């Protein structure tokens, strides 16, 4: 995390309601360049809602959201059910949809655009797969193509919604290692919503816990030692003594 740089994203006292129910209340956090922030919590706690707020997909009912990422600066990788992988798109086409906006049916990808696509695929370890059909890839490879799509579009802030869904353990580990490497080497910030606390904790620097309209934010070590996590870490020891973790009731 680069301490001096301005945060890419700032949330200040954010309140979000969905279907008349307050999902997030008074949430305040900053995401800095190169940071890997994990968002954990039980189902319905507002993890995906938070990502949608960060991505400007949802309006807030209170508070303030400041994004310092520029156009195309947000890269979003939705859950598997949120994209259609039966369109007959090739891997390069999926990325071209972001890199080449407003193109007609007959517009071909130009050499410079092809280079950007190839570079992005290389960054995520899928060099040479541009001609493969997206629907024929494994779940893990599809996630990485969506990451490449975000990077090719100039994303500085990557938002991933439960990327481990439908991935086996080695694929999950590979994806998290890739994200950690991207954060460390390129200065891209990653916010990852996950149900797998152990896996994501191994790679993240900070963790945000959402539960019952309350939230707790701190370093991974602080949160793992916090009683706030009790019940979420299956079979884990009880976590005690974390006065450093700022926690507030909503």
């Amino acid at each position, binding site marked *: 995390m680069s301490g001096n740089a301005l945060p890419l994203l700032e949330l200040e006292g954010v309140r979000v309601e969905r279907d008349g129910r307050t999902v997030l209340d008074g949430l305040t956090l900053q995401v800095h360049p190169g940071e890997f922030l994990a968002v954990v919590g039980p189902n319905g706690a507002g993890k995906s809602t938070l990502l949608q707020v960060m991505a400007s997909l949802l309006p807030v009912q209170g508070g303030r959201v400041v994004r310092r990422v520029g156009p*195309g600066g947000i890269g979003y990788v939705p859950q598997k059910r*949120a994209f259609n992988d039966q369109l*007959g*798109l090739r891997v390069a086409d999926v990325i071209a*949809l*972001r890199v080449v906006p407003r193109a007609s049916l007959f517009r071909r990808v130009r050499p410079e655009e092809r280079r950007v696509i190839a570079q992005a695929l290389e960054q995520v370890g899928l060099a040479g797969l541009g001609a493969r059909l997206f629907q024929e890839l494994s779940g893990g490879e599809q996630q990485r193509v*969506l990451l490449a799509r975000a990077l090719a579009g100039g994303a500085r802030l990557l938002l991933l919604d439960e990327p481990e869904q439908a991935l086996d353990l080695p694929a999950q580990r590979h994806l998290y290692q890739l994200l950690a490497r991207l954060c460390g080497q390129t200065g891209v910030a990653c916010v990852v919503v996950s149900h797998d606390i152990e896996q994501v904790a191994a790679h993240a620097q900070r963790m945000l816990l959402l539960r019952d309209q309350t939230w707790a934010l701190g370093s991974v070590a602080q949160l793992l030692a916090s009683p706030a996590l009790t019940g979420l870490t299956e079979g884990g020891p009880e976590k005690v003594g974390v006065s450093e973790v700022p926690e507030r009731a909503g």
Partner: protein
Amino acid sequence: MSEILAYEFMRRALVVVLLAGGLSSLVGFFVVSQRLAFAGHGVAHSAYGGLAVGLLLGTSSFWTGTLFAVAVALLIGWITRRGRLAEDTTIGILHAAAMALGTAILSRVPGYVDLFSLLFGNVLAAQAAEVRALALVGGGVALFVILRFHDLMSVAFSEELARIDGRSVEVLSYGLLVAVALVVMVSVRAVGVVLASALLVIPTAAARQVASGYRQVLGLSLVVSLVSGVGGLILSFLWDLPSGASIVLVATFLFGLSLAARHWRERRRRGLALAPFPGR
């Protein structure tokens, strides 16, 4: 073929089936991949109400039908997007209401109404002015889909991602529904309201059995559409069959062939995969 084309009405009919076929394959790609087949079916049946209004008023039933179909398509989109009713429920209600309205209005139209042609198409009866109107509407739809292809594809891939990329998802989604309604209206003259949605679905479904990649699917569905249109037209002329029925039957036959081709290809691939190494 030259004998068939000697007739003015056959030349007009050929233009109509080529128009309907070309447009159906283009828009049908999105209908099938976004599972809008039932929406197409509902819009086609809803056009019946508008056609009846045209007949009652003594004006062009093509334009009243088009207005009706577009309105119903937009209504389906609006109600579904608000999330109050499931899409199939919305379509079920609107298409039944429009059919009922059409039947009630037709009972008030004085004189003889060729209900059979309305329901199942009579492309041989297309007039020159009607063909010009179809070409105008069809040209507009083709331009929209071709020029906004990446945008439409992006929305089909993921609405969330399209929105983050700065695309106007609502405009594009409603635009696609309007395109479906217009293509249905271009096809109604050829195959009638009952079978219009078949042209939107069958050629793309057939192409998807054997083609890989969306460009191949688009190309092959265009071939299936045009062969179905021209083949059906010839059968209709030779055997005095309703044009709609013969066109849809040819398309269905081609779909059956594509299924068989896929089955054969998969069996062959499995066979090759299980074949022992040479020399063993």
